[in-house]
């Protein structure tokens, strides 16, 4: 079947749309996660999602909805609680992770929740996305884009030097908490595409590649978006063409793209060093 023929299937159109939104826009939050060293935070948010899903099951509510609300609350509270306890945000994340995991298992035991139902929030399938999933993705993507457009300089200052940002009048803790919230929501909706374990392919890998080749925030964001699209849309098309598993193919495409960027950057660096030596 040709690629064009896939457009007759609504599930493919939804999957393609989700790939574009996630790879092209949600991946941008990865820049903040990598630069602000928030990589451990995403584990905390995933476990908070598990707790939210468990509570939602007890209340006969959508586990995915419960997970998203829990991620939003956790992401927003993480920074202020770490500040109150005078600990690093990453350490606060570890506290949230173990605490929410223990609470979730306590609920499994006490309320007799089938654990696998709650763990379902960790799984994702890009071909099983509903219209509601696409709307959630689109809303979070618009929020991410709007924040970047409106607060570009504030974000640039925070990512460059948060101490300097504070002396110039930026409420750095508020900006950090907003970044955590948006990262949490992006992770939450991106998990629906490839699952929790492979979500890094969408959120982290494009940013890691872009930070190697970008010369400033704008070029890093553009490169992240392009690499993200290569990973998600490329992975989706490859998986369909060769009948490979979707989540894994998207992830491997992301790894391949990052590998190519790293090798090319390394060659460019070597050539530049060689040219400088020659010039001397």
């Amino acid at each position, binding site marked *: 079947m040709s690629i064009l023929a896939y457009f007759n299937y609504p599930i493919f159109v939804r999957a393609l749309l989700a790939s574009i939104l996630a790879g092209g826009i949600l991946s941008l939050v990865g820049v903040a996660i990598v630069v*602000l060293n928030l990589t451990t935070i995403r584990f905390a948010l995933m476990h908070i999602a598990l707790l939210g899903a468990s509570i939602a099951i007890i209340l006969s509510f959508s586990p995915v909805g419960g997970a998203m609300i829990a991620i939003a609350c956790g992401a927003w509270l993480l920074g202020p609680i770490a500040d109150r306890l005078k600990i690093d945000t990453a350490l606060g994340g570890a506290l949230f992770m173990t605490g929410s995991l223990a609470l979730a298992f306590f609920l499994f035991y006490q309320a007799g929740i089938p654990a696998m139902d709650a763990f379902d929030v960790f799984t994702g399938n890009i071909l099983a996305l509903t219209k509601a999933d696409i709307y959630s993705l689109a809303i979070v993507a618009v929020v991410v884009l709007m924040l970047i457009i409106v607060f570009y300089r504030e974000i640039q200052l925070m990512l460059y030097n948060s101490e300097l940002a504070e002396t110039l009048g930026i409420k750095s803790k508020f900006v950090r908490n907003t970044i955590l919230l948006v990262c949490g929501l992006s992770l939450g909706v991106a998990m629906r595409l490839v699952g929790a374990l492979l979500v890094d392919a969408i959120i982290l890998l494009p940013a890691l590649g872009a930070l190697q080749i970008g010369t400033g925030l704008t070029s890093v964001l553009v490169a992240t978006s392009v690499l993200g699209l290569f990973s998600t849309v490329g992975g989706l098309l490859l998986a369909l063409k060769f009948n490979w598993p979707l989540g894994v193919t998207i992830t491997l495409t992301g790894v391949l793209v990052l590998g190519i960027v790293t090798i090319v950057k390394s060659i460019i660096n070597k050539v530049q060093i060689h040219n400088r030596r020659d010039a001397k």
Partner: protein
Amino acid sequence: MDAIKVEDLSFGFNKQILINHLSLSVKKGESIAILGANGAGKTTFFKILLGLYPPLTGKVIILGREIKRTEDRVFARENIAYVPQERVLGKLPITVFEAVLLGRYGKGFKGLKKPHKSDRDAVLVALEMVGMEKLQKRDVADLSGGELQRMALARALVRDASIILLDEPIAHLDKSGKEELPLLIQSLQKEKKFTMVTITHESINMAFDRTFILSGGQLKETTNEYPSIF
């Protein structure tokens, strides 16, 4: 009118008093030095002047305006440029030009108000003043310690502030940097006539109008060229 007037100022963290009933007046165009050991509260003092920490007691008056409310703090930040010990903290690639342009934040641009041509022109002028116009496209991560400090100075100059606070300007510089940067700072201060407060824990090759020692949370003026802290 004094550029900076501090009356009976006290401040501390966790019941530990760092600034203890301190008073100081700095005239417009004056250049003073505050010497003190590490942990004496020098940077904390600067952050109080910038309105980042509220005093426990006393008053901070900048250019005749007491710094109490949010709008006063905005006023303080508009009129004071802070030059921190510049370090490359993050992983974000940023050019020297962009890093200096950030100094115009709150004055030339903020939120939806984007940088204007005048902001960019001001950056070029400031880079020229510190002799870094040729390095404007270089990544900040590739700068030497001395270049980083000169860039931080340019970022303070683009704020067009009448008061400049220098926080350990020669710390982590090599021998030539320790000799050259103070001369540059001094010539800029004479040319632009801004009020300047320099804090340092080491001997610095600059002539100041007055020199103080910060110890036990209080300032004591010294006439000794090489006070006992060294």
